[in-house]
């Protein structure tokens, strides 16, 4: 029922990867007029943005601007009230939500681990697709996030930083095409924040991942991303290099 009625009828409605006329690189993700209002309040107001494959885009703006709401729409954790998202050129209304979410990974502010061991958490995503990770695959993922040897640890014994690393490994286990990071370090103490940020930056670069990272920390945006978008009151007000966007941000009323 919730399918192709949402087409804009634009050229990118086909399954072919969208080519960006400016750079010639392919577009991993594109939002078109993506909007969400609830009971008269506009949370996200017709945001259209393209993210290239392998690009890291920072999403900045004042608190309550709609940054997290925007990210949740891309994962379809909330239903848009207008517009759509194209994933590798395909309208996401044509995808089953579960398939979409396994292809677009999301790391939230808090780790929200499931009760059980680290290994059970990390293998959760693939298991939903009927894939079972073997112990060496789990170890490799944990090594990637600097938690080698912790596979059988109960998650209740993890520190905040460790829990967030497990959450990242759990999302990476699905091998997502696009990674959505919703203030992934904001709930951590200063030291853990720096560690997780360093880890995140390394993984994003090494694996050439496409990512959108919501952050309220401008310095962090500058360290992780080259390009940024500024959202204010649900609207996209500026797109450009991180520096340009940061300047625009400081001029907000």
């Amino acid at each position, binding site marked *: 029922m*919730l399918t192709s*009625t949402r087409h804009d009828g634009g050229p990118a409605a086909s399954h072919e990867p969208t080519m960006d006329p400016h750079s010639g690189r392919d577009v991993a993700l594109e939002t078109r*007029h993506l*909007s969400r209002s609830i009971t008269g309040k506009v949370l996200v107001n017709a945001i*259209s943005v393209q993210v290239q494959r392998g690009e890291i885009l920072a999403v900045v703006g004042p608190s309550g601007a709609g940054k997290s709401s925007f990210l949740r729409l891309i994962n*379809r954790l*909330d239903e848009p009230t207008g517009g759509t998202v194209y994933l590798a050129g395909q309208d996401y209304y044509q995808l089953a939500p579960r398939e979409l979410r396994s292809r677009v990974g999301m790391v939230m502010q808090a780790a929200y681990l499931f009760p059980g061991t680290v290994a059970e958490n990390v293998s959760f995503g693939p298991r939903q697709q009927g894939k079972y990770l073997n112990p060496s695959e789990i170890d490799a993922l944990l090594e990637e996030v600097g938690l080698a040897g912790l596979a059988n640890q109960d998650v209740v014994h993890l520190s905040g930083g460790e829990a967030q690393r497990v959450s990242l490994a759990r999302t990476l286990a699905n091998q997502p095409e696009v990674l959505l990071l919703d203030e992934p370090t904001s709930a951590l103490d200063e030291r853990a924040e720096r560690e997780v940020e360093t880890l995140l930056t390394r993984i994003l670069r090494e694996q050439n991942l496409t990512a959108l990272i919501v952050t309220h920390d401008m310095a962090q945006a500058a360290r992780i991303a*080259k390009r940024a978008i500024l959202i204010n009151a649900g609207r996209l007000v500026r797109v450009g290099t991180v520096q340009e966007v940061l300047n625009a941000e400081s001029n907000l009323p």
Partner: protein
Amino acid sequence: MLSQIFHDPLTLRVAQAIGAATFALVVAYVAQWSGIRLQRETIVALVRGISQIIIVGVLLTFVLGKAQWLSTFVLLGMMLAGAVIAAQRTKHIPGVMQVTLRAILLGSGLVIGIMVILGVIDTTVATLIPVGSMLIANAMNTTALALDRFRAEVEAHTGQIEAGLALGAAPNVVIAPYVHAAVQASLIPSVNNLRSLGIVWIPGVMAGMVLAGSNPIVAAIYQFVVVAMLFATAGTTALLCTLFVRSHAFSPAAQLVLRPDGLRPLLTIPGNSHTAGTQLSDTDNRAHGA
């Protein structure tokens, strides 16, 4: 004491009712002094309770000895009322009335039906209505408990549920631990009743039968039968209502709609893809690659 003053049984019962109600009110006033506001609620509940039970008494006087099909209607009416009361307790769940009605109708209906077929419950109006009402009341309480616990569990674990959904899990998978918790919690009173039967609790049926002069052993066995039926009803109703409520917690696009903040994802309205952005032009708001 009262029986020495009043000799007519009806007058005696009315006097006893006034005595019990007065004592309940005294308790409410004492609670008021300790800052617990029970007074108004107690008065309302007492007035409501006595009116309802007298109406039922009058109704029973009317239907007793009448055609047996009448009791089916009385029981259906009780199920409907139970569904409304259970739904009021958990009204934050969207479409909860459908859940409570189906759960109570099927849960208590199934047990009453099987017990009638087996001959455990007589089909006489005098048995079917009182025993049936106990089962329906238990189905109502179980439903209210299960739904309330389910809602509380879901609201307390929104993060885990959405994290699971975001990893591509099906709603049934992410919700399973909270469904189990709700079923278990809702069955605690029924399990406790079974365990404490006779030790701390001689329930109504047995008390009534003994008061009416039945052999206490016969009364005790029948009471066990009733408590076992109550447990069967609670179990069936709890399983059914948690089965039904699952679909109310999620949207068709597998989004969690039962949320504490009330930010329920709206369903898609076909063809509105530009409506929310009409005040913005495409060029204003379109961000191309650098």
